[in-house]
Structures are given as C-alpha cells and as structure tokens.
C-alpha cells in the first residue's frame, strides 16, 4: 500500500527503518526512538495512519488487555517455538500470529519477539489522539508507571552505562573507581521487582557521567576506544541471542547444508590446481562433509531425534574453520566472489551447528524459557570466537549502526575484522597489543554488556510521583481530547492538517477550554480537578510550557501514538 501512494524509493527506506527498528526491539528489547519516529513520520506523511475516528474506540490496547480478552494466547506460540528450538523449523521462516484489527498496534508491537512475527490487519491504522498528546508531555508527567521501553530517561541511563563499559575496557578496571552503574541499575531493578524510580535513574545517570569524566583523561588515543565500541556492539548482538532458545538460529534444512552444496564443492576441487593447499584441504574434508550432510538430512526428516552427541563437535569446529580458510585463500587468489561467499556461509553454518549442539541441552527441557544474558556470559564469550556462527552479515551491519541494505561492511567494523576472521586473540593482538590483563577485562566487559541486555528486559516500568503537576497534565490531555472529538468534522480535519501544531497553539492559548465550557461540553469535575484546572486557566502559556515539550523543532508526526507491527497490511474496502 505504501508503494502505491509513495513509490518504491520510500518503501525501501521504510523497510530499512522497519528492519533496524525490529532488529533492535526483537533482539535487544530496545525501542529505538529514531527509527520508530521515521516509521511514524512516513506513515503519517503518506496518509496511511489516521487519528482514531471515534473517541470511544479503544485503540491503545496493550498486550495485557489482549491477554485478558483472549486468554494466554502466547501458549500456542510457545508450542510452535519448540520446532525452532529443536532445529526442525527454520528461524528464517518466522511464525506469524495475531490479527490486531484496527488500532495503534501496541499489543502486537509488545508481543513481537524472536521467531514470532505479529501481523496487523485491519481497515485502518489509527493513532490515538490522547496518546499522541501525552507523548508531548515531559516524561515524568506522561504516566505514573511509564513502560520501560517508552522511557527516554532509562534509555539515556543505559546508554551512559554502555559508554562507561567501553571506557572501563580501554583503561582497565583498576583505573576506574568502585562505582559501577550496572551494579546500581541491577540493584534498583531488583528492589522494585522491575519498577525503578525515575529519581533513582537520574541519580545513576549523573553518577555514571561523573565516573566517565574521571577516567576520560586516562584514555590515550581514539583507536582503542573505537575498537572497544565496535566490540561492544558485537557483544550486544550476541547477548541478544543468548537469552532466547536457539539464539544461533540453526535449522537442519538451511540451504547451505543441503546436498547440493557438495556438487559446488566438487566443482571447486576440480577447478583448483592440484598443488594448492585449498584443494588438498577440501579433498581431505570432503568425506566428512558428506557425512555431516547425511546427518543433517536425517534430522530434517526425523525432527524428533535429539541432536548429535559429542563425537561430531570437534569435526564441526575443524571443518568450519577449514572451509572458511579455503574461502579466504580463494579470495586472496581472486576467485569468484560467489564461490568464496558460499564457502564462508558453509563454514559459518558448521560453526552454527556446533554452537547449537553445545547449547541445545539447556533449552531442550525448557523451550519457552528465557535465560539471563549475565548467567550465560560464558556462552557469549565462546560465541565471540566465531561470531558469524551466531549472527549474519545483516545483523552485524545493524548492530554497528549501518543500514542492513548497505553494500559492504561499515567503517566501524574495521577494528573487529581480525576477530571476525580468526577470533579474539587476533583482535587483541591488533588493537590492544602487550596488555596481559586483557582477557580479565574482556570478561568483565562481556558481563557488563550482558547486564545491559538483561536490564532492558527486567526494567519494565519507570515510576514517577503522581503529584499535582502530573495530575494536571493527565486532566488536560483528557479534556483536550474530549474537546477535539466534540468539534465538527471539518474543524477536526483542520486541526490535524498542520502536523498537529494546532494542538500546541490551542493548549498555549487556552481558548479550547472556554469553547468547550461555552458549548456545555465539559465533563463534571471534582473540586480537586477544578482547582488543578484553575491553575492552567490562570496562565495557559506558562502551564503548557511547564508540562509539555513543544518547541520549534519538535517532530510532531514522529511522536504520533502508533506502533507499526513488523508486518502491516491494511484491507482497503
């Protein structure tokens, strides 16, 4: 539908943002405001998202509302997930479920997770007006219990903790004082059972900033910092995978494990000079590869069989490296790119298979469980030796802040290329030479980044006091929404025609309230509500300034209250 109204170029950009946004959400549980804003802006600009046509419609239905209405529908999904866990279903073919109907898709946004994609299918994609106006309130006034993923303060605090982890890796833990933002955040999250006080976050944010400031002068040169940053992003991608079953995304029917690949390898062998190392290696590996292929086929046809025992683990590691080495050798000799790519993909999949077998026993008993990244930090450490056995090229591009559709690797990948090719030792040798204690530092770094992943999951709510300001903000949002829906339809269209800026002007001027009262459209209010409203009535410009974040460059369509699902389809009737 977007293609019809906006053209293919816009569709490509939209899909790019969608891919990045859902990658960050699905794996890291990070609701990235920028890509979400891009998505919202595009939908709004091309008229694909409209204000909820009727004030009575429930458009902001969260996952808990769905569960109350439909029961625990995720149970069915969990049963399907088992097929992904045991490798009998390809993770590249995600399970799609849940029709949102018309609305702002909050429920399917919240429910999206690895292996499970939710689809919105309805007459229209609507944004809720009150939710949109609420998005312009200062964060601490938006809700007494703000969902963690909607909190900019939490995001900023986690980002600063992330920066702290990089600084600590570069200078070494001995050089930083005892303050560790991760310990503070974990303690705060545990104390509140997932609810963290906004005031506590502000305090941790400030303390982390001071801690970073104290080590800043010890950082010599930027190259190690860049290397540590890139390494951190890579660890984040791995930590995002370690918390879910079959995080390496292995399946027995992956194309690169199909028998056809061996025909290609035979062809490679025939074409290689008999004296090359690559040819000899491939010849030596050939019979073992055939055996592995047969095993894969066996599992594909009999999914109930358990994964292989230890006897092929060594084989998978050796062959995985061997095939990749051949790929590098062929590339250095200028062989065809498709050929080397295929060999690399094959080698990576052998490692993927190996990691899958090693990790399978953990998930087999509890396929629907999640585990903490921190408790699995040793698994992450082992994956770091062969990251492409866990993630793909597209994952690497996104985690390094690049478009998944971009050609080649982003520049930020340069310091970690040695690691991608030959493991951590190579990376340390090139970026942190002569630092004997680096392994200890690296373990601490991984532990912190795993904590970071866990914190995004475990901090579900940021709590703010529901003081007079917050109550007045609540009341104004509700009243201005009531006023809007009482307007004649032409006026409503006019209100929305200028990127919602009318709302800003109306709130600042306060005429809407007089208009609503004159038309006898105001609801009954209690004494407290009247008293609160009198504050606004006395000086609407000042109170609006105190409560809302309207400013000249504020991106209004980027804040509309709609969460595009990973796949959205409207039925134009």
């Amino acid at each position: 539908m977007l293609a019809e109204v906006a053209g293919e170029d816009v569709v490509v950009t939209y899909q790019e943002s969608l891919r990045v946004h859902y990658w960050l959400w699905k794996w890291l549980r990070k609701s990235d405001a920028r890509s979400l804003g891009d998505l919202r802006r595009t939908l709004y600009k091309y008229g694909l998202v409209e204000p909820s046509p009727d004030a009575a419609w429930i458009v902001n239905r969260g996952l808990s509302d769905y569960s109350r209405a439909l029961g625990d529908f995720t149970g069915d999904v969990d049963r399907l997930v088992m097929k992904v866990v045991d490798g009998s279903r390809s993770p590249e073919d995600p399970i799609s479920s849940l029709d949102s109907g018309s609305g702002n898709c909050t429920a399917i946004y919240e429910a999206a997770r690895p292996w499970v994609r939710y689809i919105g299918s309805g007459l229209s994609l609507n944004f809720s007006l009150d939710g949109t106006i609420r998005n312009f309130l200062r964060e601490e006034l938006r809700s007494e219990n703000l969902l963690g993923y909607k909190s900019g303060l939490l995001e900023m605090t986690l980002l600063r903790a992330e920066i702290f982890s990089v600084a600590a890796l570069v200078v070494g833990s001995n050089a930083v004082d005892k303050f560790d933002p991760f310990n503070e955040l974990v303690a705060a999250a545990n104390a509140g059972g997932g609810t963290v006080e906004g005031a506590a976050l502000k305090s941790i944010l400030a303390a982390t900033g001071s801690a970073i400031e104290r080590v800043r002068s010890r950082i010599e040169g930027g190259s190690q910092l860049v290397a540590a940053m890139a390494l951190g992003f890579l660890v984040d991608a791995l930590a995002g995978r370690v918390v879910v079953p079959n995080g390496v995304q292995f399946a027995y029917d992956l194309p690169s494990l199909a028998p056809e690949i061996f025909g290609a390898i035979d062809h490679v062998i025939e074409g290689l000079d008999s004296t090359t190392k690559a040819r000899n290696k491939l010849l030596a590996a050939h019979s073992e590869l055939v055996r592995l292929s047969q095993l894969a086929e066996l599992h594909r046809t009999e999914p109930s069989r358990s994964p292989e025992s230890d006897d092929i683990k060594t084989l998978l590691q050796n062959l995985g490296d061997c095939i990749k080495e051949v790929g590098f050798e062929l590339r250095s000799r200028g062989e065809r790119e498709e050929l080397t790519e295929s060999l690399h993909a094959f080698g990576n999949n052998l490692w993927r298979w190996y990691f899958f077998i090693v990790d399978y026993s953990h998930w087999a008993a509890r396929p629907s469980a999640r585990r903490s990244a921190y408790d699995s930090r040793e698994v992450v450490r082992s994956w770091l030796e062969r990251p492409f056995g866990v993630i793909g090229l597209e994952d690497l591009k996104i985690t390094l802040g690049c478009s998944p559709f971009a050609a080649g690797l982003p520049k930020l990948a340069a310091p970690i290329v040695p690691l991608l090719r030959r493991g951590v030792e190579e990376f340390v040798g090139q970026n942190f030479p002569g630092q004997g204690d680096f392994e200890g530092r690296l373990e601490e770094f991984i532990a912190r980044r795993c904590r970071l992943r866990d914190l995004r999951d475990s901090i579900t709510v940021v709590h703010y006091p529901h003081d007079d300001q917050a109550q007045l903000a609540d009341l104004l949002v509700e009243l201005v929404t009531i006023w809007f829906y009482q307007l004649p339809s032409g006026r409503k269209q006019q209100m929305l025609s200028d990127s919602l800026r009318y709302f800003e002007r109306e709130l600042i001027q306060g005429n809407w309230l007089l208009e609503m009262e004159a038309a006898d459209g105001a609801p009954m209010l209690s004494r407290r509500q009247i008293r609160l409203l009198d504050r606004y009535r006395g000086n609407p410009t000042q109170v609006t300034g105190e409560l809302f974040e309207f400013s000249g460059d504020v991106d209004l369509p980027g804040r509309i209250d709609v969460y595009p699902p990973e796949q959205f389809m409207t039925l134009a009737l």
Partner: protein
Amino acid sequence: MAGDGLADGSRIFISYSRKDSAHAERLVAALLLNGVSVWYDEFDISVGENIYEKVEKGIISVDFFGVILTGNSLGSQWVREEMSLAKQREMEERRIVILPLVFEDVRLPLHLRKKRCADFTNFDKGLQELMRTFGRRVSTTPLDTAVRERVRSALTAAAERDAAGVGRALRTQSAARVAREFAMFPEKADSVLRSHPEVTGSKRVYVDIQSANAVIPMAMDPEEPSGHLLARLLRALGLDEVVSGQRMAFFLLHDDIPLEAAETLAEAGVAEGDHLRLGLYTFLIE
C-alpha cells in the same frame, strides 16, 4: 439458637454493660444495616425520661431480648435486672425471647447454659448466627424495603438517562478517565468497604435520590473517605445485585460537585445534616 423468624417491624432489645458500649454500638449498627429494628437505650431514651420505666416498657414491647455477654455485663446489676424481666416474659409466653450474644469467653449463668448462643467472639460469625435465627441472611441493607425497592427500580430503569437528576452517559474513554476519580461501579463496593472500618454513631448525612423521590439517611464520619460512604450506600441499596455488569457507575455530589473517592467528607466540606445527591453515569463505550 432458634426462633420463629423476625417479621418486618419486629424489634430486638439490646442489653449491655456501659463498659461494653463499643460492642453494643457495633452490634446495633450491623443489625440496622441488616434491616433489623433495634431498641437501644442511646436511641430510645431521651434526656429527662425515667430510665427504669423506659427500659421496662422497652423489654415488654420488643420481640427479642439480646444480651451482650461479657465479664462486665455478667457483673452488672442493670443487665441482671433486665435479664430477669426478659426471663419472666419467656416463661409467660412459652417461647424464646432471650438471645445470648457471647462477646467474651465467660462462664454463663445456669439458665443460659442450655440455650444456644451466638458466638460474637468472631463478630461476623456471631452476626450470621443471629441473622439465621431471624430467618435472614446477612446483608448490609439498612433501608426500609419499600424505599430500597423504589430506588433500585428507578436507577435500574435509567439505562440511558439521568436517573438521579445528575449525570449523563459517558461516551468516550477520556470522559471515563476523568470520571474514574469519583464514579464507582457497584460491584467495586465490597472491596472499598474492606479498606475502612465500619462507620457507626449518631451523626447523619442524607443522600437525595431525586428520580426515586427518596432521601436515605446515612451514618457519617467526617474522616471517612467519600468513596467509602458511597460504597456503603451502594451496598445498602443492593445495587451490586441489580446493576452489576450493566456499566453503570455512581457518584456523590455535594453542592453540585462530585466527591472524589479518596477525599474525606471533612475535606469535601460535608458536615453533619448535609444533603448529598446521588449521580449516575451510564457507560456507552464500545
């Protein structure tokens, strides 16, 4: 305990020691709330009246004689004399008149030992037993049945109009969120009632229900949250039984302004003898 059932208009005399006034007040309030008419000296003897004469007339006029049994009452000359009069009636009328209400674990006088007692050491249990004696189940209805029924039918019929003279249909989520500070669904009354102690005493406010042409007197405590008073009223009217699930929510108004559930009557400026009004919202959302 056994009895022939308490006909409408029957009364029970409450005999107690002054030292047990708290027990007596609690019991009287619960009985009134359950529609049982009570002879209680605090209500029935005015200043200057002859106490002996009034008490004697009281015991003769009621249908039952409930005696609060505690260490204090068993040692009280007053209670002994009242019990003696009641015993005489029991012998003359050859039916059960005396209802022993045990509030403390005490050794009972010989003539009461053969009677089944209501065990008020657990108040709720004792009340259930006493009400069973009257052939009634415990409810919290303090109202005259006719008034109650009139109010119930008037409010029930008011699905889309302003039944109480105040209120309107709620048609938007935002309007409902503004109203949630003061409006209450009747089925919520039970949980609200658990959050605050029972209100007794002689102070009264009056709730006007215009559409039913009714005025309901309610015991009041200035420190009571207004939501609690509303919950008591909704239970008393039995509205949880008739409008539950019909998406009708009620609120109290004082000087035409809704009272928030959390604000106390004192904070809302409600004083003894004031008249409140009952408002009604009908939810027409979804």
